[in-house]
């Protein structure tokens, strides 16, 4: 028993009170990383000894020196009686898609393998100012393009701590795995179609995608600029609230960040769910899935334990005084992935044009005739399959000849998706929901390599989550049990614009009420393996 088993909130309280040293917290978390993480993700990986199969591989880079300097500063502040900040002494890992001065920031891509940004993302700067210790950079799908974290150019990719033969989900897979394996209590991720919530669900942790604009995108390497959202991953709801409190708020460096005041998320947690209206939708108990040859949509059942978990969570909330509203129609939920296939690819292609081997990052070593060839060869060598595919798809569906058919249509369907949520949350409408409860994912974590080559199936892993990105609303995934294979099940609450406080409150109420549930006492396999050693 050491500080790795403490929550972020417990660490902060003890460090601030001078009862616990920030350096001790740091060293114990570094020791945990050494015990469970194995070799960090790297380019051109040589063959690995079999024992590495049992490791988590959450990190690309552990920033030991940076974190030690920060821990020293916290200790000095505590010794001088100064305020060390609301996250004093709490280790935080950062998805390697955020620029952090003093680190290499790779986006999991060869094309940025040597990129050392001369500035720090606003969200990371806020964590640092709040006294957090930056432990390192976690692995991810290349440029965040995926739902399993296997597509990183930096291998080995992260493994699911609950069963290392299964994926972590993605793209914030390293972040979710690091939190689940007690390597860090908090991690900063990003969510464009589900990239915080889906890996949180697969790894049995809490992940929150805030309202679009609630957290700054400055210093985040862009995927889909109208969809991207930085947010917290944590082991419990109050830690997610604590971290969001630090991340949220307007940023003069991001014109889309919101000037809405930030409420006190922690204070709201204890208000309970009595009188809240929680919806369940029949449009979220299955998925619509296309035949990839004909494009005909068929209905597919999801793993039965997912629907079972939703019903059990609803019962718990009802027993706490919430009102469960059944049969909330969300008829456009099924269009979420086709719409996303268009919008996110157009935005991704646009954002990837800047990587050309001229101003930073990878440049081909081959002799080239002219600048155009330099671009082509550099991009051919620097990008993996996913960025290449997304550029091609994005350019095709936004080309002048097809834009009206695909891109403009997708933007209008996006309005329909948004309208479903507006109707559900409308305080004068028929449903008047405070939150909508759904499964987070259609299945628990799938096996490694099982889906990787099928880019349509991989994308459908985000069917339940992507609506929040289209609509811009907040959503949180929390653990709600284990399936018969012992893999975590996640459920999700969608909330109305800027009502992170309410979905955190609902999630907290469920978490507290099930604190003693037998499944919460189970320990991930990767931790048991490390103990045996």
């Amino acid at each position, binding site marked *: 028993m050491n500080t790795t088993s403490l929550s972020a909130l417990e660490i902060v309280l003890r460090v601030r009170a001078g009862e616990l040293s920030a350096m001790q917290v740091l060293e114990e978390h570094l020791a945990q990383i050494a015990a469970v993480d194995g070799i960090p993700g790297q380019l051109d990986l040589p063959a690995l000894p079999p024992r590495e199969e049992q490791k988590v591989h959450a990190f690309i880079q552990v920033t030991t020196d940076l974190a030690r300097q920060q821990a020293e500063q916290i200790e000095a502040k505590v010794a001088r009686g100064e305020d060390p900040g609301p996250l004093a002494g709490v280790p935080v890992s950062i998805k390697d898609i955020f620029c952090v001065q003093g680190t290499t920031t790779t986006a999991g891509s060869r094309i940025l393998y040597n*990129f050392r940004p*001369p500035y720090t993302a606003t969200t990371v700067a806020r964590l640092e100012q709040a006294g957090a210790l930056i432990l390192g950079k976690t692995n991810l799908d290349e440029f965040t393009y995926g739902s399993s974290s296997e597509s990183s150019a930096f291998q080995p990719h992260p493994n699911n701590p609950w069963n290392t033969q299964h994926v972590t989900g993605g793209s914030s897979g390293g972040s979710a795995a690091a939190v689940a394996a007690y390597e860090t209590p908090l991690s900063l991720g990003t969510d464009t179609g589900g990239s915080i919530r889906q890996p949180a669900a697969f790894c049995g942790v809490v992940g929150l995608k805030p309202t*679009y*604009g609630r957290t700054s995108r400055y210093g985040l390497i862009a995927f889909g600029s*109208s969809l991207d959202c930085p947010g917290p991953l944590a082991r419990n709801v109050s830690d997610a609230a604590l971290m969001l409190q630090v991340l949220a708020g*307007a*940023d003069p460096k*991001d*014109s*889309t*960040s*919101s*000037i809405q005041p930030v409420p006190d998320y922690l204070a709201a947690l204890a208000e309970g769910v009595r009188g809240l209206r929680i919806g369940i939708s029949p449009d979220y108990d299955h998925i619509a899935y*296309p035949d990839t040859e004909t*494009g005909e949509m068929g209905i597919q059942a999801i793993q039965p334990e997912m629907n079972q978990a939703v019903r059990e969570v609803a019962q718990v909330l009802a027993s706490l005084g919430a009102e469960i509203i059944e049969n909330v129609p969300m008829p456009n939920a099924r269009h979420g*992935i*086709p719409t996303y*296939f268009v919008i996110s690819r157009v935005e991704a*292609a646009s954002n990837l*044009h800047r990587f*050309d*081997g*001229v*101003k*930073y*990052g990878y*440049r081909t070593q081959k002799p*080239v*005739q*002219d*600048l*155009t060839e330099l671009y*082509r*060869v550099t*991009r*051919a060598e620097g*990008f993996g*399959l996913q960025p*290449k*595919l997304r*550029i*091609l*798809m994005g350019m*095709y*569906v936004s080309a002048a000849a*097809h834009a009206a*058919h*695909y891109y403009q*249509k997708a*933007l209008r369907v996006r*309005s*329909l998706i*948004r309208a479903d949520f507006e109707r559900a949350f409308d305080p004068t409408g028929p449903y008047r929901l405070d939150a909508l409860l759904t499964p987070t994912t259609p299945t628990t974590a799938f096996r490694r390599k099982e889906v990787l080559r099928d*880019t*349509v199936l991989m*994308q459908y892993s985000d069917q339940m989550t992507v609506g929040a*990105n*289209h*609509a*811009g609303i907040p959503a949180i995934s929390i653990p709600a049990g284990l399936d018969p294979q012992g893999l975590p099940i996640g459920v999700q609450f969608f909330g109305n614009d800027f009502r992170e406080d309410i979905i955190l409150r609902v999630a907290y109420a469920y978490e507290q009420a099930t604190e003693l549930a037998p499944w919460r006492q189970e320990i991930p396999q990767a931790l048991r393996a490390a103990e045996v050693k």
Partner: protein
Amino acid sequence: MLPEKITREMFDKLVALAALELDEEESEYLRTELNHQLAAVKELSEIPIDEDIEPSLHGINCQGNPPRPDEWKPFPDPDAILALAPESRERYFVVPDIAQPGQEGQ
């Protein structure tokens, strides 16, 4: 109606426009996946939608920061930016010759 499949020829043109190069294996795999993804988005064209539904560029109505005054704020360390360049000389980025119109490879 749009063509259902991206042909080899169309695909190669797209690859050139995207400033990419693909080997044979990558090319076949990516063209297959692209066609599968286009099949998956086919349903978009079949969704009935009222004339008055506007496109959404963002989900929520952005109430972002008001515009800043247009003031020049120099970056404190421009040399740190230049130092990232694969090749630079006398504080310029160095690139190979820029092809003239008509001379371009393809």
